[in-house]
């Protein structure tokens, strides 16, 4: 159990004992400090997340929806432990989660080869040391799981298609057998047929590994396909959360209704 307490009293804990959840966020407020200029430290604080509380249960995919600028990315940063200025509690059952980013062209180092990229999470693992043999076995295992052919190991990410890249990015994220990961708009940059394949892949990993996920998306249709529960966010607050079907059928909030209408559901 690793517990960090910020100056503002925020608690960030990994390997916490949670009863049946992968992630619990309690009364989280995140602040952004005015940018420090020259030698002066900025002082004005702006609150960007307001009293956010939710949990991701073990083996659950929780959708997070909202327009851009509503705090989705801030929330994911906070969960990854990058944000320092917050109060409230972020408790994780496992280690710090990895992320699958929106743009598979930006999230893979263009100067490296696929095989190297896949091995990196294992080399960087601070909880244990992987021997070269173990690494080789593990990356082949995961590559098979995400359907990346070993022939691609010697290629650069620039030589892969968007779908292949996103598969590699997902492979990197699940390399250390996490119980929880964050998918930040993982399919928004892909075209529709590839989207479907990648969503199916995420879904199947979720089923075979019991992987829990925070699935961030602005596309309510995609959320409907993948997620068990959904959370609607606006201006740093959670408006409502619940089982996807219920929320979609009986949205309790006007904003949710307009989002659904806009998505044509």
């Amino acid at each position, binding site marked *: 159990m690793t517990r960090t307490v910020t100056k503002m009293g925020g608690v960030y804990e990994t390997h916490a004992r949670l009863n049946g959840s992968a992630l619990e966020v309690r009364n989280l407020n995140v602040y952004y400090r005015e940018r420090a200029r*020259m*030698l002066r430290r900025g002082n004005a604080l702006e609150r960007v997340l307001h009293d956010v509380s939710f949990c991701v249960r073990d083996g659950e995919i929780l959708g997070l929806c909202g327009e851009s600028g509503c705090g989705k990315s801030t929330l994911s940063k906070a969960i*990854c432990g*990058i944000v320092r200025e917050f109060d409230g509690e972020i408790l994780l059952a496992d280690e*710090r*989660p*990895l*992320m699958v*980013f929106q*743009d598979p062209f*930006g*999230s*893979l*180092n*263009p*100067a*490296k080869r696929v095989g190297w990229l896949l091995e*990196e*999470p294992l*080399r*960087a*693992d*601070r909880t244990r040391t992987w021997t070269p043999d173990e690494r080789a076995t593990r990356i082949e295992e995961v590559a098979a799981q995400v359907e990346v052919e070993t022939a691609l190991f*010697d290629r*650069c990410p*620039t030589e892969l298609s968007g779908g292949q890249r996103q598969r590699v*990015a997902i492979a*990197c994220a699940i390399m250390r057998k996490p119980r929880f990961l964050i998918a930040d708009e993982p399919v928004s940059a892909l075209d529709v047929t590839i989207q479907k394949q990648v969503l199916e892949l995420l879904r199947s990993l979720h089923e075979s590994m019991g992987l829990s996920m925070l699935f961030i998306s602005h596309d309510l249709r995609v959320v409907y396909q993948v997620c068990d529960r959904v959370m609607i966010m606006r201006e740093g607050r959670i408006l409502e959360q619940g089982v996807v079907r219920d929320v979609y059928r009986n949205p309790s909030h006007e904003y949710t209704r307009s989002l659904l209408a806009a998505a044509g559901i």
Partner: protein
Amino acid sequence: MATTRTRSLLARIPNPRLFCAGALIMLAVITLIVIGMVWMPYEPTAMSPDRLQGVSAAHLLGTDKMGRDILSRVMYGSRITFLVALGTMAIGAGFGILVGAVTGYYGGIVDEVVMRVTDGLFAFPTVLLALVIVSLFGSSTLNVMWALGIAFVPSFIRVARSEVIRCKHLDYVKNARLMGVRDARVIFVHILPNVSGVIMSNVMIGFNNAVLSEAGLSYLGIGSQPPYASLGQMISEAQEIFFTVPSAVLGPGMVIVLMVLGFSLMGEGLRAAEGRMA
């Protein structure tokens, strides 16, 4: 595997033709230097009664006013000039890239201070700065190398810093940090290979400046001491006999031009339109 790797490395160079042209010229210069290390027609410092001779079979580039064979001196002088430029770059680029990458990555107050010091160093002309250092520590080939090296540090700090800052907010860097990759590894293994194109092209251009600055300094009489010569010094000594033995100026001058041209072409070849290796 090895062949596919070299092939793809060449393919990653934005302008392979320019790069190869430059590399060929450099190969010629380096061949001259290497031959000079093994064999020279005459001892470069040996004087002889055959003074001020023109081009002949015995002396391909003629002799100077002390009867020393100019070709041998050019071979020797190119070696000195080349090594000084190489050493200058090793010091300037090595230190500059290290400091620039680290301060750029961490930012904050240290970065601010380093940048202001860099700006201060920038305000001095390179040659003037080198002159100050050489006059403080004495004139020798090694000191010229250190002096020029230090004078070149700021430009590399600038380049490395701005490139690292450009990259440090990209997703793959964030990703590496989330994975728990240590900072030094993020900087040197994840970021630097991506900016190597820009940095290498700056090294090539810096190399040129080093060759020219060294030649300039030794023209002013600073650097390796007679009777040993670097190219700039030879030109300086030969100006009074330019009309008697033109090859005394043209020989060393030609080698300087070739070195600079070779590295310029290689540098240009590495620099893509958008300023990075694609």
